[in-house]
């Protein structure tokens, strides 16, 4: 029995230690790549006059797709904000995903909408579209509203993709606030495209809790008052300024946040659009379009902008946060499982050899290993086999390294965009960096574990609880030809005229 414990101890210790060292070395490398990338970006764009894009006939056409479900309270203001974005040749496609409140009535009244005789080409599968609306008022000519049966966010985005004809599409959350120049900044990587086709671009999402908002714009930026959103500010700063920036530099970015992402429309459609059978449709799409390009042997890039382009409200109570994190974990698991073929597959280049393994080991596996570590520690403590000084030494190692990474990200924020004007806010953020490993990190780790358990027990929260589920039975056949189903649907859509 003693030998068994000895061998088990050896195996667990050494493998966990090796994993820890690899994780930290990776984070250190990512930090360096991120610093290089940020420096390059800032230097490059300090000379840019984005306004020249507005007047240019060469600039591509854009469609902003905003799925909305039961957002009656904010939808009218949010659409107004979207209509005031700086860009010339673009349209706003709001997809009402079968809201059960009075969202649709409010939009129709506010923007003087009427149903048009729209012919639907269901290139991507989506729930039945009840109608397409345009405004009688020429001031709102850029607005298109699609009313459809409830099918979830991915389904709504697919409906939007079916309606748009423009070169590029921007997917956003209808309840997030975009910076007025977000489209100009996001389109730039597509304009800089050379040998490698730019298939997607994402930007930094910032936290709007406690910020002063009026008329659909952020007026004053404050650090959140509550501890939970404040810890998330630290987490987002670290994830966006260190993680994603570095992955963009390495061309291994696997995730463009669903709150704001720009894609080449034709590539998205050819790759099959958003997947409706995952709760992490944003990550799944990026992985799929990358995979599609790799399989077609076409050189491509996925770009990332460190500018804060979009503001969103994050969960301020533990229950909502737990639901969100569980969904993220399930989304990650579903995407990793669906695209398991990529795992260390040299055929997919950096996607298979770098991006996918990183997500597998560090984003999905790391919290599980950490949790097992705690179980192991508890077991040893109970059985009296714990070596306290060494435990503390290791705790110090993990803690100080983690905090130093957070402080690096605060530094990056300070020397780049320094959105928090008050010195007090920066100090508070730094204190959060010191405290977060004790109260916030264990919490998110447990939520991660819960996500794993939820996935094992086949929970599909995103579709069923929050967006009233997908029926999935009446989806039309995929294709560009006018098949019978499509024609019937269009009869229904345009039947009123």
């Amino acid at each position: 029995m003693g030998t068994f414990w000895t061998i088990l101890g050896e195996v667990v210790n050494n493998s966990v230690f090796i994993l820890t060292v690899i994780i930290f070395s990776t984070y250190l490398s990512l930090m360096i790549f991120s610093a290089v990338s940020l420096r390059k970006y800032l230097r490059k764009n300090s000379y840019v006059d984005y306004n020249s894009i507005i007047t240019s006939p060469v600039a591509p056409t854009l469609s902003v797709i905003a799925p909305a479900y039961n957002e009656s309270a904010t939808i009218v203001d949010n659409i107004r904000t979207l209509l005031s974005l700086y860009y010339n040749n673009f349209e706003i496609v709001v997809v009402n995903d079968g809201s059960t409140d009075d969202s649709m009535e409010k939009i129709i009244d506010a923007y003087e909408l009427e149903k048009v005789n729209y012919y639907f080409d269901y290139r991507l599968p989506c729930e039945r579209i009840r109608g397409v609306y345009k405004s009688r008022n020429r001031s709102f000519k850029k607005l298109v509203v699609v009313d459809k049966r409830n099918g979830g966010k991915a389904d709504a985005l697919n409906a939007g993709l079916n309606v748009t004809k423009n070169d590029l599409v921007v997917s956003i959350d209808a309840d997030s606030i975009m910076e007025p120049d977000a489209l100009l900044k996001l389109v730039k990587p597509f304009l800089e495209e050379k040998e490698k086709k730019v298939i997607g671009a994402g930007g930094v999402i910032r936290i709007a809790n406690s910020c002063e908002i009026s008329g659909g714009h952020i007026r004053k930026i404050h650090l959140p008052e509550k501890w939970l959103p404040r810890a998330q500010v630290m987490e987002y700063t670290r994830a966006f300024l260190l993680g994603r920036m570095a992955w963009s530099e390495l061309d291994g970015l696997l995730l463009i946040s669903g709150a704001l992402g720009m894609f080449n429309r034709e590539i998205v459609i050819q790759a099959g659009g958003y997947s409706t059978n995952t709760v992490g449709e944003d990550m799944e799409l990026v992985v799929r379009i990358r995979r599609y390009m790799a399989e077609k042997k076409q050189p491509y890039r996925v770009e990332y902008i460190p500018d804060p382009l979009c503001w969103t409200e994050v969960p301020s109570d533990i229950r909502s946060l737990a639901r969100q994190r569980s969904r993220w974990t399930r989304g990650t698991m579903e995407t990793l499982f669906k695209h398991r073929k990529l795992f260390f597959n040299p055929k997919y280049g950096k996607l298979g050899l770098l991006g996918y393994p990183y997500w597998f080991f560090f984003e999905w596996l790391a919290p599980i290993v950490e949790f097992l570590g705690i179980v192991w520690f508890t077991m040893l403590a109970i059985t009296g086999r714990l070596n306290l000084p060494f435990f503390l030494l290791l705790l110090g190692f993990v803690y100080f390294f983690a905090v130093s990474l957070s402080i690096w990200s605060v530094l990056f924020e300070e020397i780049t965009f320094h959105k928090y004007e008050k010195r007090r806010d920066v100090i508070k953020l730094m204190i959060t960096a010191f405290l977060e490993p004790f109260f916030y990190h264990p919490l998110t780790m447990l939520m991660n574990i819960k996500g794993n358990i939820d996935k094992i027990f086949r929970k599909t929260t995103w579709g069923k609880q929050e967006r009233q589920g997908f029926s999935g039975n009446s989806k039309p056949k995929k294709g560009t030809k006018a098949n019978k189903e499509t024609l019937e649907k269009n009869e229904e859509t345009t039947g009123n005229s």
Partner: protein
Amino acid sequence: MCRQASTICWVPIKVRMDLKTTFHIILFILLLSVFPQQFITAVPVMQEDTAAVSSDMIPSYEEPGEEQSAGNSYTGVFARIFDTFEKSPTLILILYIVIIYSIITLIVLTVFILLNRSRMQKEQGLRQELNEQYQQLLIDYLFDEEQRKEIFRQILRIASSNFRRQILINQIIELSVNMQGKVREDLRNLYLDVGLKKDSLRKAHSKKWHENVKGFRELAYMNIRSANDRIMECLNSHNQILRMEAQIALVRLSEDKPYTFLSYLEKPLAKWEQITIHELLTQHNLSVPDFSEWFDSENLSVVKFSLQMVSWFDQKEAIDGVIRLLKHGDEEVSIYAIRTCGKLGEKKALPHLQEMYDHASYNIRMELLKAFGRVPDENYLEFLNGVLDREDDVQLQIMATKAMENLDEPGISRLIKLMKKKSEYKNYQIIIRHVLDGRIY
């Protein structure tokens, strides 16, 4: 027992702790870093334990030597630290190093962040103050000729450092962009008299690309050609920004034929560069060249850009060249040529477009139908009707219908007739209703 006792040290663990406990832990780790021997000797199990891990990791916990007995002197402390490092197993050494590195980083970064805040605020204040001062002085310099010498001396006195001179350069450029004639010339003279040209030239010849960009911009705005050779060198630079800024500077600095660089361009011309060139042409009153000159360029991005510019500046005389490019080997060039034919509205191109249709790819067919929509000619009504009948693809059908609608009366009456007709192609009605709904397009 001993081996298991050490095993826990590799497990990354976080436990719930309050602030006070955190402080104690930090204090403990700091003490551990400085006086590890006391802690380690209190855990004698390590001696046996590490032997099983690896021979090179074995710490030999000897009795404290002379250095350790040096009491509280600094020498003693450092000696103790070095001694501990020497005797610790490799993996534990890594832990120590990471902890010490992290603590030092934390302290340095915290101080840096706070100081940087103050520095930025101070710099911003100074920048604002200088901007206000320079603005006033420049206006006085331009419009108060009697005081000009005195103002010049004042400017020289204020512009005493690189930072202050850079702000002056920015102010002069900002002002001269909005000025013409004598005022602009006076500003240029001031720039030369203060010796700011040297600053710009230094930047243009710097080894740092972002400095080069700054230098090129300043020289171009101030119309100084001394660094043209250096700018030419950067025309085919690997750095896209530098390349683009070199192009822009040359366009601004060339008196005749500012776009000759397009003929020598080896790298693809990105959309962003095209936007900038177009902006220069439209916003800065530069003479528009005959873009058909580059139709035979080996650089396909230059050909595509030229086609776009031909349609934008409505260079109808280039139509023969455009028709020639319809059958270009590169599909994208063909698409751009078809689009240009449509935008120029030249009926001369229509027979060529019709001829292409049957053997063309999907994308080209789509573009051809769009072009027919832009150049309405009722002679092609039957052709378009035929396309509507023949094509299965909805998007092609919509485009053909749209082109028919653009023919006005004859096209619309044909569409209405088709709508009324009972056809096995049920989608006629829906497609035509879609196209005829003026609110959609």
